[in-house]
């Protein structure tokens, strides 16, 4: 932004510096994504605003896995099916498309650990000091799946976690959750389990644009109406069910062709 944004805006509209507009918009999008390293800017004499730069959410796209190997996919699909199983009450994590959500998250900025400090040294901390690994989330998932399958082969007599009976899968997950199962490869079992469970619930309950919460069925199950903007008329209607079906950023089935 220069010292006379009003004048610059006019130039934009006249197309005088059209290339500049694109450049500025692209730069703005990068900043707004919570990432570091946007160009420095100076503002003076006006409230800066530029059309066409709204910070729309980063939608998950495509189909199939970008991040998971077949072995990892087998683990993830088996594990999340135990974390949130399917039944008549509501969808399971697999039915809600959580594995696809996890894949896209791990393939992107979250997987890279863009909001994690990963610098050294890396001594083991107390539980109160939280995450203390050199691994980014993507690296942790990769290392953990190998380590868990190695543990299963050595101790539980199956070729992989995914091949265990569900009761044994539950037992193994509880061992990871409590830390009674220790893993090789520098993987702290409790840290990994906590991350996997958190990310699974994220995929289950976040807006469908991120790839999970298919058909907003998880929202439907609990009665959450989704991304509504205005409940003013319902504030004083104590104890009544709000009848709205869930809505996401892209609307809901019936608003448009699927």
């Amino acid at each position, binding site marked *: 932004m220069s010292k006379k944004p009003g004048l610059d805006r006019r130039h934009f509209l006249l197309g005088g510096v059209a290339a500049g507009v694109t450049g500025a918009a692209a730069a703005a999008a990068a*900043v*707004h*994504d*919570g*990432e*570091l390293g*946007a*160009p*420095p*800017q*100076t*503002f*003076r*004499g*006006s*409230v*800066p605003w530029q059309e066409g730069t*709204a*910070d*729309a*959410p980063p939608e998950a796209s495509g189909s199939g896995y970008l991040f998971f190997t077949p072995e990892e996919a087998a683990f993830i699909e088996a594990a999340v099916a*135990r974390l*949130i*199983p399917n*039944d008549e009450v*509501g969808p399971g994590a697999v039915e809600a498309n959580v594995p696809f959500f996890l894949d896209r998250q791990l393939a992107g900025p*979250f997987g890279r650990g863009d*909001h*994690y*400090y*990963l*610098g050294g040294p890396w001594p083991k901390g*107390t*539980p*109160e000091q*939280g*995450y*203390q690994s050199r691994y980014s989330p993507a690296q942790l998932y990769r290392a953990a799946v190998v380590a868990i399958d190695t543990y299963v082969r050595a101790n539980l007599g199956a070729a992989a976690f995914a091949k265990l009976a569900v009761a044994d899968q539950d037992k193994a*997950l509880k061992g990871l959750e409590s830390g009674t199962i220790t893993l090789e490869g520098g993987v702290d079992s409790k840290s990994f389990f906590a991350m996997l*469970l*958190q990310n699974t619930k*994220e995929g289950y*309950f*976040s807006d469908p644009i991120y790839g999970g919460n298919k058909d907003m069925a*998880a929202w439907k199950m*609990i*009665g*959450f109406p989704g*991304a*509504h*903007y*205005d*409940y003013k008329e*319902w*504030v004083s209607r*104590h104890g*009544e*069910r*709000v009848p709205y079906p869930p809505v996401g*950023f892209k609307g809901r089935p019936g608003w448009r062709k699927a």
Partner: protein
Amino acid sequence: MTTTLKPVDAVLVGFGWTGAIMGQQLCDAGLEVVALERGPWRDTATDFATGFAQDELRYMWRHHLFQNVSDDTLTIRNNVNQEALPMRHLGSFLLGTGVGSGGVHWNGQIWRFLPTDFLTKSHNQQRYGKKAVSDYDLTVQDWGITYDELEPFYDQFDKVCGTSGKAGNLRGKIQSGGNPFEGPRSNEYPTPPMLQTYGPTLFGKAAAELGRHPFPHPTGNLSEAYVNPLGAQLGACTYCGFCEKFGCGNYSKASPQTTILPYLMRKSNFTLKTECEVLRVELTPDRKRATGVTYVNSAGEEFFQPAEMVILSAYILQNVRLLLLSGIGKPYDPKTGEGVVGKNYAYQTMSSVNVFFEDKIINPFIGAGALATVIDDFNGDNFDHAGLGFIGGAYIAGMVTGGRPIEMIYTPQGTPAWGLEWKHAAAKNYLRSFSLSIHGSCMSARGNYLDLDPTYRDIHGRPMLRMTFDFTGNDHKMSDYLTDRAAEVARAMNPREIKLNRRTGPWSVVPYQTTHNTGGAIMGDNPRNSVVNRYLQTWDVPNVFSMGAGAFPQNAGYNPTATLAALAYMSADAIKSQYLKAPGPLVRG
């Protein structure tokens, strides 16, 4: 190479609430002011418009508006015998960044501290004896100001925000419907209280039946449209339930963006530079005067910005770190108790009680950041502490800020965290439960402090800040007592069951608690016990002022924003009326 820029009258380091307040005040006094903000520009229409603001994953869990800790964090430990390690991911507190900073993603809970909160040491010592203020190695102090002195500036902040609420004490006369325990207000709230949803209403009814004094939470989520004295317009809150941890897409939450920036950004004597991180305050060789600040921008270019006045208006953790990095004031040593910078770091002691109904539909998704009915009967010294073994207290709030399902599904005692049993409990209880929040004080103690880490460094090569903190026995006792008082109200609501989430064990950086870090640059009546005087002017370098909750000698049982904003207005008033005429110490040390 460092480029030296044109001198200015004042440089603001950080551009959240206190930066915006000081910018507006000093620009109106005719000063040439430059604000340096290390994060990006942010505005409502671009960054959290209603079309995509209600995004739990992106804003809460992917930290979209929060400080990115990947190249600068702090180190943490519970006591001096541990090795401090980096906070590698945000958890316990959600630091802000960018223009507006935490003022964008806060709840909008606007509280004044009690008159006795400013006299924590002398008042409690007088009423309960010396042990009450020295047990558990407490190092509580008086603030060096009184509530009455600060009141006009609380009032000023209320008018800027358009705070919604009901006064409980108007110029000494108790008002029905408000908080009867609060200090006298010069004026009623600018706008009426918000409407209460079902959960807070049930809480208020049960509390009244127990003889408590419920009232609507004072809030910067506005109950109706409002135009503030700077001409900024705010709209009525729509109770969308995406408030704290989010930006408001509806211009309904008081923030620097909605209350001050529309005015300040148009001033011809104000300049804002974003993506500019201040490395240190530069001092004259005798260290008695600041000459300006050195900063580096995101392109890696380094500048020296000369200034007549340096206002540290970043978050408390950055302000304290800059004081330490710049050599302003003597660092605190917990072994000897000497030194002041970093001393009396404190936090907020939180617990909660979840309430589950069988048949009542609570609709938790209808909410706002400060939508609550509250009792203040057990806060500060509003009740007799004789024989209880602690000082301080908490407000208890029947609060529904939203029903964001990743974060806010409550399940009964004993429910596992996953599996079918968890899913069934979530499906059954989501619409029929809510939570009482117990928002407790945190008394400062000898072993809780901030200094520079000996090992970890940020991307600029500077030592990270090191936080050494744990709750004291005083705070644990207080929290247990208050959680029991909340449970009484919860039971009086006749729910199916309740779940007590007590404050147990050492402080952990993992679960979210509050972003109410305080102390480290505390205020006081002399340079031996404090970093800044009553006007937030550093005792050692009179042209450096340190804003924010760092000035709190200990933390009261309330949210800190209104108090730190009032302190900023009081500082600005003293700068305008006294300092500019005769730059120098405003108080004799």
